[in-house]
């Protein structure tokens, strides 16, 4: 069995699966249950200053469901912990003492004044916690008070607060980033400049989950009104993966440890975040949907996959996909693929045909010799992959690369063996041309 032990910026945990700072980590009772279930670590729900915040007493969550009520996306308008600071600190201390092998990081959010940070850091240090995570991400409620994502959206503030934290504390510092910005590299760069040991991302995304058409109010609705909340769960994973990758491959932040967050539901999701550079992952929605037991298969599945691939420790594959994250302009334009439909697997639903016919390249038949039959017309197929995506049968339609030297029936040109991209393409007005004689 592969070794899942993780050392993330000096914080050790038996596996890379941490619970994110959120309701599941708000108190000792839950955290102990999580550790008993096998979670490698937790980021304790964000502490603030007393008096504690208050939450709404109506719905705090909204959801997007699949037809069988599968929870695809969740949002929340819950604030940071609403329990007294002293209670949280006492429990953190106790839990760390009882579970020394697990990672226990404490999330923090206080106003942007140096003294406020000095005060709380001192108290957290006394608990023996392994590190702090700066919550610069929460997009609702706290941001209206100049905290959370209001800080995360201003790189200068991120750098400033991070610097205070590093200056006044010996603890490892993770900066949690908000996705509610245009370029996630900027806040990551600021965190690094401030001395952050790592970044974690993504926090939740500004969202309205739906509109109650009877009362004409956004959901979740509190007494007829709604406010945007933070979106998370499986639906946000693609956005999170991209942001993690952007930071991992940016020369100025490359190598900065990342704790990946955003819709991690299975071991495979976790492996994908890690392949894009995350040294640990944080989970919330999967646990809030199914309970803490989901970690068992995360551990087992990741370990099994690592065994199959011959990885003996997680650091052997963390970041391995990063070199392959490229810019469009460097993609190989000489690579030519055609869709191929396996007629034995085809159930003749015709979705590939209508998708291609109505919205793409008219490259799939619906009739051949008077019979219902779906075949790719290579002369028209641009290899776009839409048919693969809409086909309900796995592996029925595949994209097959053309062999160099053969003729592409669409363009009537020879498929070139050599790599060539947009930067040198003749249609590109900015193309890098060879130096004039």
């Amino acid at each position, binding site marked *: 069995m592969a070794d899942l032990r993780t050392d993330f910026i000096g914080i050790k945990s038996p596996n890379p699966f941490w619970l994110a700072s959120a309701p599941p980590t708000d108190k000792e009772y839950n955290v102990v249950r999580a550790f008993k279930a096998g979670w490698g670590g937790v980021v304790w729900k964000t502490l603030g200053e007393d008096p504690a915040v208050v939450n709404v007493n109506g719905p705090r969550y909204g959801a997007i469901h699949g*037809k*069988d009520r599968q929870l695809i996306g969740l949002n929340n308008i819950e604030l940071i912990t609403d329990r007294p600071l002293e209670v949280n600190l006492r429990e953190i201390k106790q839990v760390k003492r009882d579970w020394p092998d697990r990672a226990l990081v404490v999330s923090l959010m206080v106003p942007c004044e140096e003294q406020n940070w000095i005060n709380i850091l001192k108290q957290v240090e006394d608990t023996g916690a392994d590190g702090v995570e700066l919550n610069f991400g929460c997009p609702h409620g706290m941001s209206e008070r100049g905290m959370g994502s209001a800080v995360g959206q201003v790189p200068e503030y991120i750098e400033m607060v991070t610097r205070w934290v590093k200056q006044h504390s010996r603890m490892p510092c993770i900066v949690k980033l908000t996705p509610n910005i245009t370029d996630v590299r900027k806040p990551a760069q600021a965190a690094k400049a401030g001395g952050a040991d790592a970044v974690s991302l993504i926090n939740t995304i500004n969202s309205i989950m739906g509109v109650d058409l009877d009362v004409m109010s956004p959901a979740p609705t509190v007494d007829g009104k709604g406010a945007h909340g933070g979106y998370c769960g499986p639906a946000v994973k693609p956005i999170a993966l991209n942001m993690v990758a952007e930071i991992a491959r940016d020369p100025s932040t490359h190598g900065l440890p990342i704790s990946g967050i955003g819709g991690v539901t299975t071991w495979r999701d976790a492996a994908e975040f890690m392949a894009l550079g995350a040294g640990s992952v944080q989970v919330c929605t999967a646990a809030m949907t199914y309970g803490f037991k989901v970690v068992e298969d995360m551990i087992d599945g990741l370990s099994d996959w690592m065994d199959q691939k011959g990885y003996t420790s997680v650091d052997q594959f963390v970041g391995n996909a990063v070199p392959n994250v490229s810019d469009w302009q460097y993609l190989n334009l000489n690579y030519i693929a055609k869709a191929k439909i396996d007629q034995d697997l085809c*159930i*003749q*639903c*015709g*979705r590939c*045909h209508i998708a291609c016919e109505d919205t793409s390249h008219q490259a799939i038949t619906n009739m051949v010799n008077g019979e*219902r039959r779906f075949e790719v017309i290579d002369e028209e197929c641009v290899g776009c992959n839409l048919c693969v995506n809409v086909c309900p049968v796995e592996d029925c339609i595949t994209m097959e690369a053309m062999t160099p030297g053969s003729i592409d029936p669409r363009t009537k040109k020879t498929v070139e063996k050599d790599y060539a991209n947009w930067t040198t393409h003749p249609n590109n007005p900015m193309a890098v041309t060879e130096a004039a004689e």
Partner: protein
Amino acid sequence: MTQTKAGPDIVAGRLPEDVYAENFSDLHPLLESHEAQVEADRCYFCYDAPCMQACPTSIDIPQFIRQISTGNPTGSAKTIFDQNILGGMCARVCPTETLCEQVCVREVAEGKPVKIGQLQRYATDHYMAENDTTPFTRGAATGKKVAVIGAGPAGLSCAHRLAVHGHDVSLFDAREKAGGLNEFGIASYKSVDNFAAREVEFILSIGGIELKTGMRLGENLELSELRASYDAVFLGIGLGGVNSLGVEGEDKSGSMDAVSYIADLRQAKDLSKLPVGRRVVVIGGGMTAVDIAVQTKLLGAEDVTIAYRRGQDRMNASEYEQHLAQTTGVKIMTWAQPKALVGANGAIAGIELERTQDQDGSFSGTGETITLPADMVFKAVGQTLVQTDLGGSLTLEKGRIVVGDDRQTSLADVWAGGDCIFGGEDLTVTAVEDGKIAAESINAALSA
């Protein structure tokens, strides 16, 4: 032959009172909203969908299922009614396993089709619960009068479509109640809660249709007179006659006609008052045979056997219906044909069957016989058109009325549809389609 009792054992009330309601409850209860959503989500929204091609009324099935999926069951029902105004009954009685669901790509892929019939019922039941009338609006009055004979599926479909076009329809039926086989023939567990009558009311609500019951062609209605007093006539008269077994002893008591027994059963106010034999033998292999066998079993008959003269694969009853019979406890005996109904004192005590064989396509009796004790023997070997009712004026083939693609008969002002026409499939849904096509053709003729 074992004689367990001196006379035939035919009595009512074989079961405890509360068991009847349970036995004759809905075969497929209405899907709950969540079940319908999940089932609708299984539909792939196929292009040029095979299910739609297989539907005799060409209902846009992917569309109506998508409308259920999007939370628009009213729109879904409109999509259904647009093609099939008896979509509610068809959802209950269509042999979907040999029509839409047989060709569903998910049947092809995984042997589990989308439950199209049950989804159709979900939508149509929703609509009929929420609305008093059909989604159609009656067109401006044309002043034309059409006589529709037979208020079964074909006649109802035709009358409704004609009314939509603004014609005045007189809808005649021989029985005291409209509905035809929907009311008198369908197995009762497929149409509970008086659905057939409610559907008739729903259809008639379009207006412009005058229902006249107790009017039988050949008795108090003459085709020639109808032709004289109406602009057009549609015949949806079904098959009024029943084939006999043609064997000795058929006149004995206990020798029964499945169709009329089912009609009695359907109209019975109290099933515990309906006499049924302890031992029942059904002769036939179609839907009616299964319907009578299953229902007598559910009425408390101890021992019910369907005897069919060929192999099970040749039975007209679908595989699903055969399984329904067998899981209800009905025995299916194949390769056996009736030879004589035996008994004493004018009542049957059993049936003598001859083993049959099919050798190189040649069907014959083997001479070997077997006698089954029986208190009731039902004949379910097909129905016939009562030709005398038609006054000899129509072209017939194999005892049924010949029609063209537009369901026009050999008489220019007479159309026909449903079981009475030649080449039909004897299904509710094809009858509905016949009525619809005929109505469009009649409308075209009257508008010309």
